[in-house]
């Protein structure tokens, strides 16, 4: 099963990298960009067809390692086979 875990900074946490990207987009003339927040995407393949089990494993992965929950939120998406 394919899965995707997206890790993003919590609202209110300063993101100087996002700010720098925002500035670069502006200098490239990309119009209408009012804010950029940088995050991470993990594309994960997980064995078995048990969606609940996979979701529990991914939650554990996110909590234990992929995200630092002091500053980051995560979102789990499960794909098809």
């Amino acid at each position: 099963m394919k899965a995707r875990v997206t890790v993003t900074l919590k609202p209110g946490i300063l993101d100087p990298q996002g700010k720098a990207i925002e500035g670069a987009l502006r200098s490239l003339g990309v119009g209408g960009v009012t804010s950029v927040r940088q995050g991470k995407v993990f594309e994960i393949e997980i064995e078995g067809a048990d969606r609940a089990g996979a979701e529990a494993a991914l939650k554990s992965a996110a909590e234990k390692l992929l995200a630092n929950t002091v500053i980051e939120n995560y979102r789990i998406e499960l794909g098809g086979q």
Partner: protein
Amino acid sequence: MKSAVVVFPGINRERDMARALRLASGREPAMVWHADTALPAGTDLVVIPGGFSYGDYLRCGAIAARAPIMDAVRGFAAKGGLVLAICNGFQIACEAGLLPGVLMRNAQLRFICRDVYLRVERSDTPFTRGYNAGQVIRVPVAHGEGNYIADGETIARLESEGRVLFRYSSPDGMIDPNWNHNGAMNGIAGIINERGNVLGMMPHPENHVEASMGRTDGRGLFAGLLDHFKVAA
């Protein structure tokens, strides 16, 4: 003082640290590999040195914090053992849950490698007894992610409990944004845990312990630790 220096792949300050410990204590520290599961018997002080463990992959210190040896380090700290975590070590200690907060990218997005001034906030801890409260020391920093942040409640607790031991300051001890080179909240350069036995700090006192390096401001930390164990013995 029997010390143990934890070595992860990508750590590069372990020899500087071992040298400073040897000069201070006259004893060779044990170098403990990340894959080990136990600390040498009779260890008094565990040091997590600086560097770029696991290439700073994922988040600085994130992977090292989950290495096998860290269970032993957590157990050692839980029993009251002294842990000194410098630079990447501070990041590892935060990721391992030994200290609160996170070290974020420096506010100016630059890697900073130079001497900074630190105001020592307290002298009544094992780590700072070699200094006077309010004393300013000059030590090097070398980091890209040293910008300490924590939620408001945690910062308030750190401050009210006197757990900030080192703060970036001017040469005469003024706390000023112009001297806070990485943007850390409240100019925080080093903190201790609730129990006071784990110190995390971004600067490198181990690099200013010999006259040949130009300054010896870092000696106080090591001399203080040595005194602490002499008195305890």
